[in-house]
Structures are given as C-alpha cells and as structure tokens.
C-alpha cells in the first residue's frame, strides 16, 4: 500500500494505516448523482413533470402504434368539424386491411411522406391489433379536414426531434468551446470569450431568418450533400444556442481548476486523466445537464417560432409551430374555431411548462451551491 517512509513521517504504524484505510473504504460517500436523485424525488412538481414528459415522449415515439386517424390525408368535405366524442369508424386504410397483403410502400404512400422501417412496422402492428378502427374527431378537424388530435401527436415527433438534436448539437459546440477556453486560459481564453461576447450582441433571430431564407436558394446544392431543410434547422438552431453553454462550462472549468479537492487529488498523486474524468467531468456534467434541460424548451420554442413564421418545418411535415400558425390563421371575426387554437396550444404549453419545471427542479437538485442545504 503506502510506502513506509511516509508512514513514519506521519507517525503511523503499518497496522494502524491498514485499519484507517479499511475504515475509509467502508465509509461510503454519497455520490453527486444519488444525492441529486434523492433531492429531485422530494420535489413533487419536478417529479410529476418528469413522469409527464416520459409518458409524452413514449406516446410520440410510438405514435404509429396508436389507433389514430391519418394526420396527413386531406378531406375538404369535412373541414372545420368541431370536436365530438364518438366511438369512431373503421375507415383506416380499409382497402388495405381487407386483404392481408399490405406492402410498406402502400402504407407510406397512404399515410405519411417519410416513415422509416420501424414506423412502418408500428403501423403494421397497429393494423393487426386495432384493425381499421379509428376514433372520431375528438379534437375536431382543421381547414383541410385533417384530424387535429393525430396532427398534435405526429407534430410532437418533429418538435421533440428538432429540440433534442439541436440541443445536443449546441451542447457539443458549447462544451468543447467552453472547456477549451477554460483549460487553455490566458490570451486564448480572453480571445475566445471576446468572440462569444460579440456573437451575444448580434440580434440572432434576424440573422437566422436571413440565413434560412437564403438557404432556400442553395437547396439543390445542399441536397446533393445530403443536407435538407431539417438538417439546416438543427445546425442553425444549435449554432445559436451554444453561447450560454460555452460561458457556463468555461466558468465552471476555471473554478474547478483551482478547487481544493482537485488540488487534493493532485497531492495524493492522481494522474491528470483521472483528475479530469473523476473530478472535473462529473462536476461540469451537472451544470451541463441543468443548462441542457433549460435549452431544450428554448429550442423547442424557437422551432415553433420559426415554423410559425413559415421558415421552419415544411409541409407535409407537421410540428407544433405549424399547428399554432394554422390555428391563428383560422381566427376570423365571423366564426370561432377555438379547437384549432386551444388543443395545439395546450399540448405545447404543458410540454414546455413541464420541461421548465423539470429544469428548475434539476437545477435545485444538482446545483453545487445547494448541496448539503435543504
């Protein structure tokens, strides 16, 4: 174990040292994560928000499994139907359900422009379980006669996908940039943070809108590279939201560099990679997670905002921003189509609220300053 020279200096006998080490091993420290989890569990609001989000995420992932109406099929003869709670009918892909031989292409053609093989599988399972039954218009229909309920569920897929991918992208840039700046220090740090300052003061929304409209002109060239509008959306949103993350990570890394426990680890002879991965990364990670949970709703909002203006997701894809835009477009002084505004808004509002509440709860649970206090 420890060499004898140092034991003598400390005035310890070898057996005492063994005993002390054994005691130290038995003393189980509470890790940051178990502590945070305990704290989070006590926060009822945050916990219920998490359950809600998990349920919502599952629903949106398994959307093709659910017996719902077709979200894309247009039927102008049933436009603007108000919500009715009826048992539904069996019109769903009926001509295919009659003979048992449906191909993937048929489903894709009849259902949704872009489905991967997993979604097609889901739809087949759904046909096997529910047959061609579909519910009535529980949340009404829109101007094209499409079912609002199923558009909300399918729209959540796009919104969640954009939010997650764009947030992760911003996380990647922010963490790498911030960590580099904090670790390198000196004039490099200074320069890198000045650049962030400059970018902060640009009214990004205008530049982003500008960029997205310009990208329309490069559409063909970009598609040759395999970049479509969605990818552009991820990149652009991610490129906007990394600034705060970079600042926060840099601050944390700077603070950690000179923390006592890092010094202590260095004193007892821990290697640099060990210090990095055992001490620095977990502590940075907590703050990264806090900001990630706060970035996701912000990105979701931004996507809705862009789609609302007609600059985000393009039809026939659907997202919550598009639904909100459809709803406000249907507002007119003559007749009130309240379900087009209320239901998509409720879906978006509850999700964003839950994300924010969970983010607040996580911050309270993980914030190092709150540790040890209640």
């Amino acid at each position, binding site marked *: 174990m420890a060499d004898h020279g140092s034991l003598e200096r400390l005035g310890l006998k070898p057996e005492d040292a063994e005993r002390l080490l054994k005691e130290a091993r038995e003393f189980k420290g509470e890790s940051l994560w178990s502590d945070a989890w305990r704290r989070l569990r006590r926060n009822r609001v945050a916990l219920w928000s998490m359950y809600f989000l998990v349920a919502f995420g599952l629903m949106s992932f398994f959307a093709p499994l659910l017996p719902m109406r077709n979200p894309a099929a247009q039927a102008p003869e049933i436009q603007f139907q108000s919500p009715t709670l009826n048992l539904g009918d069996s019109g769903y892909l009926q001509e295919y359900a009659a003979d048992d031989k449906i191909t993937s292409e048929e489903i894709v053609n009849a259902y949704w422009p872009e489905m991967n093989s997993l979604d097609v599988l889901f739809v087949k399972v759904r046909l096997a379980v529910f047959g061609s039954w579909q519910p009535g218009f529980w949340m009404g229909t829109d101007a094209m006669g499409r079912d609002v309920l199923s558009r909300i569920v399918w729209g959540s897929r796009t919104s969640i996908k954009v939010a997650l991918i764009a947030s992760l992208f911003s996380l990647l840039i922010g963490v790498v940039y911030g960590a580099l700046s904090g670790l390198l220090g000196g004039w490099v740090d200074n320069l890198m943070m000045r650049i962030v300052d400059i970018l902060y003061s640009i*009214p990004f929304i205008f530049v982003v809108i*500008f960029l997205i*409209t310009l990208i329309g*002109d*490069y559409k063909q060239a970009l598609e040759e590279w395999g970049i479509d509008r969605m990818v552009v959306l991820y990149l652009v949103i991610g490129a906007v939201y990394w600034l705060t993350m970079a600042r926060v990570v840099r601050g944390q890394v700077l603070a950690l560099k000179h923390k006592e426990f890092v010094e202590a680890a260095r004193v007892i002879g821990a290697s640099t990679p060990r210090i990095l991965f055992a001490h620095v990364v977990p502590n940075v990670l907590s703050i990264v997670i806090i900001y990630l949970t706060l970035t996701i709703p912000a990105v979701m909002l931004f996507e*809705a905002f862009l789609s*609302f203006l007609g600059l985000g997701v393009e039809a026939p894809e659907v997202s919550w921003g598009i639904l909100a835009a459809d709803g*406000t477009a249907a507002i007119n002084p003559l007749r*009130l189509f309240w379900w087009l505004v209320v239901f998509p808004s409720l879906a978006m509002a509850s999700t964003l*609220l839950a994300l924010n509440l969970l983010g607040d709860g996580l911050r309270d649970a993980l914030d190092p300053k709150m540790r040890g206090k209640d």
Partner: protein
Amino acid sequence: MIRFLSRRLLWMAITFLLVSLVSFTLMHSVKGGPFSKERKLDPAILANMEAAYHLDWPIWKQYLHYMGPLNLGDEGWFGKGEQKGSDPFTGVLVGDFGPSFRYQDFTVNDIIGQSLPISALLGVVAMMWALALGVSAGIASALRRGSGLDLSMRLAATGGIALPNFVIAGFLVILFVFLIPLLPVAGWGTLKHMLLPGFCLGLGFAAYISRLTRTGMLEVLSQDHIRTAHAKGLAPRTVVMRHALKGGLLPVVSYLGPATAGVLTGSLVLERIFNIPGMGSHFVNAATNRDYTLAMGVTLLYTVLVYSLNAVVDLAYTLLDPRIRLEDQ
C-alpha cells in the same frame, strides 16, 4: 465613462462589420440574384436592372459601395464618377440603406421610417406592461413570502416564461375578442389596438421581471438598513418604496437590455398575428421575398439598436449602483 463608451463603440463597430460582411456575402453569392422570378425577364432588361443595382460589379466592390460614402464608379478599382445606375446612393455608414428590391418606388429608409415608429410604440407598450405587472407581482411576492399569493405568482411566472407569446395571444384573442368582445381582433391605430399585442408581447418579460424583483427584494429586505428603517418607526410602505425598492430593482435594470432585444424578436410573430405594419412584418416579408436590401437594412439597424440599448442600460446600472465600476462590465 469616456473610456467605457469608446470601448463599447469599438466593439459595436467590430460586430457591425462582422454582421454586415457575413450577411452581404451570403446575400450576394446567391445564384440567380434577386430578380430571378418565376416569370423570366428579358435578358437585356435583366442586365440593365443588374447594372442599375451594380450587381455586375465584383462582390468586394459592391460591399464597399454598400457600406461607405465612397462614390464608386464603373471604371477601374476605385474609379469615381459616372455610374450606369442613376441612384444617388451614398452608403450605409451615412445612414442610407439604398433602394428596396421589391417595393421599387421606395427606399429602405422610407419603409423603415414608416414602420419603425409602429414597432417602437408596440415595444414601449409591451415594456410598460412588463414592468408594471412584473415589478408589482415581484414586490407582492417578496413581501408575502411563502404565502399562497407568492406561490401562485411564482407558478404564473414559470408559465409566463415557458409559454410562447403566440400561444398566449391565441388564448387571449379568443377570450377578449370573441367571448368578451372588448377589443378589436387586429389592426393598428388606436390605443385599443395596442393593448392586446402589447400585453402578449410583455407577458413573458413580466414573468421574468417578477422573478428578478422577488429575488432582489428578498435580498434587500434582509439587510441591516431596512431593519434600521423599521426600527426608527417608518411606515412599512415608506420602507419598501423609499429604501428597499431602489436596491431591489437593480437586477431588473440589468435585465432591461436583453429584454429589449427580446421584445424586438417577439414582435416578429405578434405583428403577424395582429396584422400590425411594423418592422417585424416587413422583415419577415422581405426575407421570404428576397428583398435583400430591406432585410439587411433591418438586420443592421437592429444590431445597432440592441447594442446601443445595452450600453445605455449598463450606464444606467452604474449610476444606480456606485459599487459597480464601468470597467468591470
């Protein structure tokens, strides 16, 4: 003070240069250019139009022409004098944003001149709502800490931060235009037109301001000088209004800079919902119509606006709190 201002000015110049350079390059490297519509123009006419807007020049020369009062001509590198186009365009740096590509009888300055006051008014109304609601809710929360009032205010604030303003606008339009017909559904002109969009725009910021006020007030209220004020027998109202409020509102002041930028952003959507002919709707239209000079003019103008407002807010902050020195910013 002078040093602070000159440093800010320098950074603003750098930012401005960066934004203009990037957006100009992007804008002018587009194939086809702004005049390639669905209906093909006669090549000769197209060439004439491009010459009139100097689109036949190399891009760096176009940029210099766009930016500065250099009076560049067609000949040579920096040849002065005769231009094919007859526009007396002088350059962005002296406040001329050039002709609009789409509204061909208007210059960008005309359009901005018409729409900026509208957007500014909407922004002022929104900020008034935000400050009035946010500060009073924050103070009430802080004074009744832990009560039901505090709890409901904080929940409302979380909601206000989480919800997008177009969602709130949809609900409020249904409520105040259809169910309780008090306000007009859209348009611009009278005070009644401003109330609802201003409220929707301000609500998110009100929520944030109420949080900041609550935190700031709680901190100040626990300090010694407040206890002294109470001890010497001042009325509770006087203590709060005269002694606590000034310190408690400091975080709100520093938030006003980002809030103003946010108001400008938010008005993009709200101007569209409520059909308000402000800068926001012009910008979105310009961007989707490829009216490059207009879109760029608005972007550059907003860059300068946001930057100067932030500088003003920082200045105000140091005046309110002498402990903070300008060099720290």
